[in-house]
């Protein structure tokens, strides 16, 4: 079997070293806010030009998978997703860290990432060609509904007032519309400002909305950043493994969700993490714990976002359509190498493909020791650094990270201002997450919406376009369940215990 022959090629000392170096570099870069997985791969691509194609792919795959995992550190320890894929990791990871379980959360994230990565790579190994055809079945309407499905997570996240959360989501969608329009070229919502023409850069907005409020509250009190338990418990691997074993179905489901979302071109780790998080919450027995430090939340997101690595390579290698943004960079690097991607790649250049897939397995497995060691170090340094150094260091990292995304000082100013707005809104019960969801999903939602609208108008069947396609209907059903499911469950429970009719709307006792 061709696949097995190449297992040994992948295990050569050189490839082993490349996988190790890639995972370490990726993890470190991914953990810095502002440096995304895409940038990690892009920055290190020139190194691969002189290599064999398979080795080059292994190095890039290792950097990519490491960077996706590295984003979890700052998400858990600083409430700032190091990469957009780790947005949903902040929901439960940071509350865990605040109550003194940061070490556990980091270890859980590592185990989940490795599991997700392995599931994604298995799909890539066994099912790449048939799965690639799934991507082709997704039209603009399906992308629109997928984005709406991501937005429906707002309901799951709104601990207080659902209406406030929905308003926040709308605000995020409007923020995403600022600048040159997605479909036509109108300049929108800039109100004459030159600074806003380029639009609001998603990653810098993310840093501002999540990180700046934490900093603002950190400087306001002399309290410690994270609660520290008196005794160091190491990496709490045994505990984390036990939790992971209990959550094995969650891990598998989230990994499959991540792989499938990764296959869809343009929908990357952030959407995969959000969808998996929403599903984990919906099916969990203790839904109330989500958003307050539920380990399942961290597991779901981290396994899903690492599964997108393997999933994203499926359309990249089979169809030549990048599944995720870093795949686009890798695709470019492959073209430089002279590798022709496409349906024939798996037969004509099978040695390259299978050596790479085994290399991806290797890199994912290496992520376990690497991740645990770096994670332990990251956690220790975050709790050991005195506040007077931690706050300026994180603030400085947000400045340099935001600047380096587009080499723009305007982005830095926008980042800080959005952070202040996020902090003020947070005080009035409008949390940052719905705004961020709107901002991230806005362009996908709008593109899908406008294209579907145009096609629907042209065929004089707008309703049929939006509501008449089978995949759309399946996604719509999932949206309805995730939006109204939690409220219905609470309402039924509330009726049973004879509580007030306001249910989830007001938290009256």
């Amino acid at each position, binding site marked *: 079997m061709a696949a097995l022959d190449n297992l040994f090629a992948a295990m050569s000392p050189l490839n082993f070293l490349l996988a190790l170096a890639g995972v370490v570099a990726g993890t470190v870069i991914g953990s810095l806010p502002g440096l995304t997985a895409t940038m990690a791969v892009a920055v290190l691509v020139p190194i691969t030009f002189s290599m064999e194609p398979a080795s080059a792919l292994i190095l890039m795959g290792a950097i990519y998978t490491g960077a996706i995992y590295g984003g979890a550190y700052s998400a858990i320890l600083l409430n700032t997703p190091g990469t957009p894929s780790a947005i949903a990791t902040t929901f439960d990871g940071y509350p865990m860290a605040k109550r003194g379980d940061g070490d556990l959360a980091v270890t859980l994230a590592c185990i989940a990432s490795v599991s997700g990565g392995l599931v994604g790579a298995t799909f890539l190994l066994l099912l790449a060609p048939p799965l690639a055809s799934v991507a082709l079945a997704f039209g603009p309407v399906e992308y629109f509904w997928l984005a709406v499905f991501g937005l429906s997570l707002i309901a799951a996240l709104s*601990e*207080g*007032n659902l209406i406030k959360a929905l308003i926040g989501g709308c605000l995020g969608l*409007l923020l995403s519309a600022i600048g040159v*329009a997605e479909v036509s070229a109108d300049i929108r919502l800039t109100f004459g400002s030159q600074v806003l023409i380029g639009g609001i850069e998603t990653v810098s907005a993310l840093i501002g909305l999540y990180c700046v409020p934490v900093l603002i509250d950190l400087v306001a*009190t002399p309290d410690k950043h994270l609660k520290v338990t008196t005794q160091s418990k190491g990496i709490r691997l045994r505990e984390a493994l036990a939790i992971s074993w209990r959550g094995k179905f969650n891990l598998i489901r989230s990994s499959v969700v991540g792989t499938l979302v990764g296959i869809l071109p343009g929908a990357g780790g952030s959407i995969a993490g959000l969808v998996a998080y929403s599903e984990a919450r919906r099916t969990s027995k203790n839904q109330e714990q989500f958003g307050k430090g539920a380990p399942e939340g961290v597991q779901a997101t981290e396994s899903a976002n690492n599964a997108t690595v393997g999933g994203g390579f499926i359309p990249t290698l089979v169809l030549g359509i990048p599944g995720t943004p870093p795949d686009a960079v890798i695709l470019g690097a492959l073209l430089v190498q002279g590798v022709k991607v496409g349906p024939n790649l798996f037969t004509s250049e099978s040695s390259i493909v299978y050596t790479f897939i085994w290399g991806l397995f290797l890199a994912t497995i290496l992520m376990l020791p690497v991740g645990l060691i770096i994670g332990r170090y990251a956690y220790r340094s975050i709790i050991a650094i005195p506040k007077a150094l931690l706050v300026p260091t994180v603030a400085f990292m947000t400045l340099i990270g935001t600047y380096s995304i587009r080499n723009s*000082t305007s982005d830095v*100013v926008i980042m*800080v201002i959005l952070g*202040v707005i996020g902090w003020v809104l947070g005080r009035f019960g409008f949390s940052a997450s719905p705004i961020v969801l709107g901002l991230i999903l806005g362009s996908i939602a709008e593109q899908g919406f406008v294209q579907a609208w145009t096609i629907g108008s042209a065929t004089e069947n707008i309703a049929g376009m939006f509501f008449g396609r089978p995949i759309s209907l399946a996604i719509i059903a999932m949206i309805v369940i995730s939006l109204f499911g939690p409220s219905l469950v609470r309402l039924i429970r509330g009726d049973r215990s004879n509580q007030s009719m306001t249910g989830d709307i007001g938290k009256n006792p």
Partner: protein
Amino acid sequence: MTQDNPTTGTSPGVSSGPAPGNAPDNRTREISTPIMAALFVAIGALVIWDTTTYTDADSYVFPRTIASVMIGLSVLLAIQWLLGWTKGDDVETSTIAKSIPRRIGLVLAMIGAALLMPLLGFLISGILAFTAIMFAAMYDPWTPYRAIVYPIAGATIVVGFYLLFSRVLQVPLPEGTLPF
């Protein structure tokens, strides 16, 4: 997601929002909700007004739809408040005990650094911001040990990241226009 106050939203007896007083009637106690609702209606109206200048239907259909939904939701929020259903929402309460000057200092230092970058260069504005924020976040007394170690650590961090980004990652950080 509330950032740092796990107790909010669970104690309906506590005054929520900036309005002083502890009157038993919900409507006189918490006035932030209708103000926020009005603010979002205004933002929605502003967006709809802006969309009238676009030439292409593709450009305005999405923001106009979203802005209309946001206005509708804001009206709903105001109705909720009138009916007294917003009592006990996640509104942070303990403002007074925390330092407002330090917060303002942090924000000003960050914005200042961004504005000074083109003039002073990234390194100098970064060091200035780091120093200012360090003072804003300093609650312990300045012992001789701290007075020596903290600035050295700070300089190492700033210069280290500067070199990492500008030399290793090849990010063209602003050099500054001053002749030094």
